[in-house]
């Protein structure tokens, strides 16, 4: 499969501090890639550089064969890379329905079309379908600031997916979500992304989530990728064990090996 995203020699320095260095990655169409690493390892810096939030200090970023280096976030979004955030980014004082309505309006309209009425019957139908796809229809009229954390995360991702991106980058989709809810929420997210045939890259600290939903792992340590391999292989890698996930996790999981639902798009 062809590369959706190709990153070469990407680096980011903040003064004398190196936040990312020598990042070389190719991500194929419809791959599901997990990015793991301790806090400060460079995971979010990597996503921020690809999505235009931070300008890289060096390197190249190609999306669908075209350089996106130096483009602003909105231009990158228009080209087909969307993202969600560790802290869900929604319009807090608006209802779930209105959040989604604005997302559809912005994604669907250009130039003078932006002056057309936002709330149309056909757009309201598409909003309802999207809410149903992400199983948040029952919260339709709830103000976003009063949503449970998991629902807010779903709303954030559902809004990011409105533009039908080719690649979505999720920053810790299960952070702040209870252990009981995390698999249900991830099932909803991954089901919807699979249906949309979107290439997925997500940052995750929870190795159970990584094992279950990801086919390939990029492990970051001190700004560099120390392992890029299929999930099972990566999680057994000695460097990953030492610098990223720790040995405790493997001792705990030794008895469960092979039981989890394996990743795959």
């Amino acid at each position, binding site marked *: 499969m062809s590369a959706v995203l190709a990153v070469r020699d990407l680096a980011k320095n903040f003064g004398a501090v190196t936040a990312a260095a020598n990042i070389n990655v190719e991500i194929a169409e419809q791959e599901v890639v997990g990015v793991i690493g301790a806090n400060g390892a460079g995971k979010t810096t990597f996503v921020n550089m690809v999505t235009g939030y931070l300008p890289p200090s060096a390197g190249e970023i190609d999306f669908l064969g075209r350089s996106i280096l130096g483009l602003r*976030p*909105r231009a990158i979004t228009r080209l087909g890379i969307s993202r969600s955030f560790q802290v869900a980014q*929604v319009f807090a004082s608006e209802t779930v329905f209105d959040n989604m309505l*604005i997302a559809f309006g*912005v994604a669907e309209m250009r130039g003078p079309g932006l002056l*057309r009425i936002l709330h149309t019957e056909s757009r309201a139908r598409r909003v309802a379908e999207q809410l149903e796809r992400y199983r948040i229809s029952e919260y339709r009229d709830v103000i976003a600031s009063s949503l449970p954390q998991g629902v807010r995360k779903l709303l954030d991702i559902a809004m990011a997916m*409105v533009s039908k991106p080719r690649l979505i980058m999720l920053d810790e989709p299960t952070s702040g979500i209870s252990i009981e809810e995390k698999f249900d929420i991830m099932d909803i997210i991954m089901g919807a992304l699979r249906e949309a045939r979107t290439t997925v890259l997500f940052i995750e600290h929870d190795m159970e989530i990584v094992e279950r939903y990801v086919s390939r792992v990029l492990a970051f340590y001190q700004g560099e990728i120390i392992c890029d391999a299929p999930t099972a292989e990566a999680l057994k890698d000695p460097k990953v064990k030492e610098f990223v996930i720790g040995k405790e996790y493997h001792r705990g999981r030794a008895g469960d090996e092979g039981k989890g639902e394996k990743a795959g798009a």
Partner: protein
Amino acid sequence: MTRLIDRTVIGLTAAAVLFGLLALLLPDWVRFIATQSFARGAVALGLLVLWRTGLVSFGHALFFAIGAYAAAFVQRALVNDAFVMTLAGMLGGGLMAFALGFLLCRYRGIFFALLNMAFSMVLWGLLAKNEALGSTDGMGVASPEFFGVELDGGATHLALFYFALSSALVFAIGVHLYLRSTLGSMSTAVRENEIRLEYLGYSAARAVHVKYVISGVLGGFGGALMAMVVGQVDPDSMAYWTISGEFVFIAILGGTGNVGATFIGALAFEAIRSAAFQWAPTVWQLIMGGTLLAIIMFLPNGLWSMVARLRERRAS
């Protein structure tokens, strides 16, 4: 099909028609004050567009003055026609907002508010010191013609009243429809979460710039209308920072819950000020201050919140 004509459009139109009919029974001085209110209400309507975006300007007298002086210049240099003078005012306000918008769309909060004030005071200084612009005395503005028809004094004021009323209606409906559009809905998006808006694919700065130009056009209209109504343009009554404060006062008084609220606020402002000036000429500012205090304490969402409460009560 999306309905453009909603409850607000019908309500605004009905209110304008009723007010237009009622005005025939009112004395000339009331219509004169009402016409001024429409001019100030239009500027406050521009503030509402920004306010919904989470931005307050303490310098909209800038556009008011530019609109007024543009109308005066067009009358002197080109043509004495109310429509052309008004268009010149709107164009002047819009162009100034377009130029300044490149800088101001990057600022938020107190910086946005005070930068506007700074620019308005720069203009005030230029107008006050420039002999060619009439210095502190300003310039006189003759009674305008309407499509080449010259009217006598009373008829001119009546014509200006209906011109102001119909323009206010058009602007209120226009802004209402704009706020219902995708671009208008970005007010919420900018106010609530610029990051999300950027990552939905639109520039928050551009959204603010567009809103700023709209508010500049409305400010220019207000200034041009005021110049024709009072027959005079001068820096102190057009560009000084206290004039900007009056527009903010009107926006607070009316509230930002509805586009019609700014005109209600403007009418109330003129009525309170006129009454205070007549009955307590030495302490009228105290009455205005007390009014503002009372509004903030008891009606923080302005006079419009009384209408909203009435609707809620009816609904329940």
